[in-house]
């Protein structure tokens, strides 16, 4: 097989995989609309995906906000427009960095765990066991993860927005000596509800991507412990990639 063929078959495989992931998502969506939903399971996943990701999301967001303030201050100082740092920090966090960074972190943390757990269940026949007990594995395993992802990603993003803006404020006001009142006015004047809401919509889509991709990879694990490892890596790589790709289209669509 020459390199051209290899690229071709890789691309076909990739597209095929995306198609299967979409189908899995639609199925999960269908099942999520059929009551009863296992509330206990959803809660458990919300804790797994959401609550446990809070510390790492906060740390990432606060340092991102601080770096943003530091970097943009250097530029704006040359125009005597230091107060615009607030605008830049707020806009880039709410529209872009908040949802994307949260998505990537959750993909690495919760997505990997999800794929590993489901992968293990697949290779030890636990998923088959579910089917034999007249319980649909998609409904029992994927739906709670999907719903939890859809709900928790936006909430984590809100945290990330808020703490990031706070970090930027701290650096700009306490370290770089920007007028705090003007800084906050520049932040609130140019920030609009649609910026925040658009960012949250993005996060919702990222939540869907992470949950669906990780579950897909876990569900399709083959070949024992090694397969579980592969599934885990694959889940993180693919969901991170899809987050970044879809981010472009979401940005073009929403804003």
């Amino acid at each position, binding site marked *: 097989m020459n390199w051209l063929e290899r690229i071709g078959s890789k691309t076909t495989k990739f597209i095929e995989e995306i198609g299967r992931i979409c189908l899995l998502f639609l199925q999960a969506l269908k099942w*999520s*609309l059929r009551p009863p939903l296992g509330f206990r399971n959803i*809660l*458990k996943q*919300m804790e797994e995906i959401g609550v446990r990701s809070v510390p790492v999301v906060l740390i990432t967001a606060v340092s991102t906000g601080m770096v943003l303030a530091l970097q943009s201050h250097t530029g704006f100082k040359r125009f005597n427009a230091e107060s615009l740092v607030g605008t830049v920090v707020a806009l880039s966090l709410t529209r872009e960095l908040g949802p994307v960074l949260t998505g990537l972190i959750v993909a690495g943390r919760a997505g990997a765990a999800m794929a590993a757990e489901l992968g293990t269940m697949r290779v030890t026949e636990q998923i088959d066991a579910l089917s034999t007990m007249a319980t649909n594995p998609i409904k029992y395993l994927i739906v709670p993860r999907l719903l939890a992802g859809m709900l928790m990603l936006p909430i984590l993003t809100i945290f990330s927005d808020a703490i990031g803006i706070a970090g930027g404020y701290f650096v700009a006001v306490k370290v770089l000596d920007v007028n705090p009142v003007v800084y906050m006015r520049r932040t*609130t004047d140019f920030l609009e*509800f649609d910026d*925040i809401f658009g960012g949250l919509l993005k996060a919702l889509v990222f939540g869907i991507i992470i949950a669906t991709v990780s579950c897909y990879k876990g569900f399709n694990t083959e070949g024992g412990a090694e397969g579980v490892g592969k599934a885990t890596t694959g889940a993180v790589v693919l969901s991170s990639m899809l987050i970044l790709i879809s981010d472009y289209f979401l940005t073009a669509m929403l804003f």
Partner: protein
Amino acid sequence: MRLSAEARVGLVILLGALILSYMTFTVGGYRFGREAGYRLYALFDTVAGLDTKSGIRVAGVGVGKVETIALQDGQAKVALRIKPEVKLRKGTQAAVRATGLLGEKYIELIPGTGEGFLQDGDTMAESERVADLDRLINQFSTVAADIKTVSASLREALGTEEGKQSLKEIVANIRELSRNLNVAVKDNRENFTKAVANIQEASASLKEDLPKLLESLKHTSEKLDVIATKVEKGEGTLGKLVQEEGVYNKLDSALEGLNSVTKKLEKGEGTIGKLFTDEKAYDQITTTLEGLSNAVSHLERFKTVIGFRNEYQFDSEKNKGYFSLQLQPREDKFYLLELVDDPRGRVTSTTTQVVGVTGAVTELKTDRQLKINAEFGRRFSDVALRIGLMENTFGLGTDLYLFNDALRFSADAWDFNSNDPLNKHVHLKGTASYSFFKYLFVQGGYDNLINKKLGTGFAGGGIRFEDDDLKYLVGSGALRMK
């Protein structure tokens, strides 16, 4: 302290909701329901560069934001949201200004001195147009060109001695002539206005007024005749002047120049020349008739939306169809009429005891039924409230619009006291719909939320046409029929 899983999840969600609401309220520009403050309107010839959310200032102090910009009879109608604590006296005028030569546009309000204050819904006048640079330069150049022609011709006319002498008389004569013309013109204009007014009152009386109109036209031409004969006879200086050809020619061009100056000066009141031809009268009659026919089709002012949509219910695997007609007499008020083809319109249940199974088995039987929605709605900014008949029972609903109305979230509640044991809870429905083209939209949601046996998720889509599209469709259809 050790928190349970429920408590931890609950805490995180609650904190998230709190931060989000704090952020949305501080960034402003977004309020649930009615926004604070009152609304004023202002009409402008042009608002180029002005956007919604642009600032409004009085003496440079921010007092509100531009809410909407709409077109009304060729003018821009701008809705201004003014902070409640700001009181503006009647007679306040509005102007579009820029913060600098390249700065962003805002609206400056020039406070009036009238009795009483402007109330919610009042309309302000546009203040005198501030000279904008382009217009000024344009006007200056035409005026300058005219003056140049006049002065050039005058210089030539004044070159000869005799010309100098006769010019004095000419000027006097022209003054007299123009006064005469003015009188003639005035008479005529009054008559025309009268005629037009009569036409507007009733087209029936047009016949009676027509002779009068003709009479005054005759009168005008007679007067003109008199003037012309005077000139021809060489009476007065003007007559003499006509005899002497050299001076006449020079004067002619001077007159031409003057004429164009006066024309431009008088442009505000209409051109003299036009009044003497039938064209103007014709124009006015046509517009009047058009206005009459517009008034007859009063309905045209209504915004009408017609749509079809379908919802596929996952649980029952059936389709629920809607045909809807929305009449919107005002921007913030609408009536919604819908025919609903409900696959589970009538629900009957039979309960049977099966041997060997604990508890009874209940079977549901559903029949298709046609139902009616008739709702009255009010819209407040991004939120609409609806009340009325929903699927043949009393119901309430609310909509939240986002992204220029592309995304809509709706919640409806109806059927508050149903008798059927399986359908005993109130019928709740949540819908999210997104329109991605002008006519097409997709939607999904959950129907009959708390009646467990009948609850179902649904997804679907539909088409909708607004009146402009309808006019086009009907129009082209009619053309084809011809």
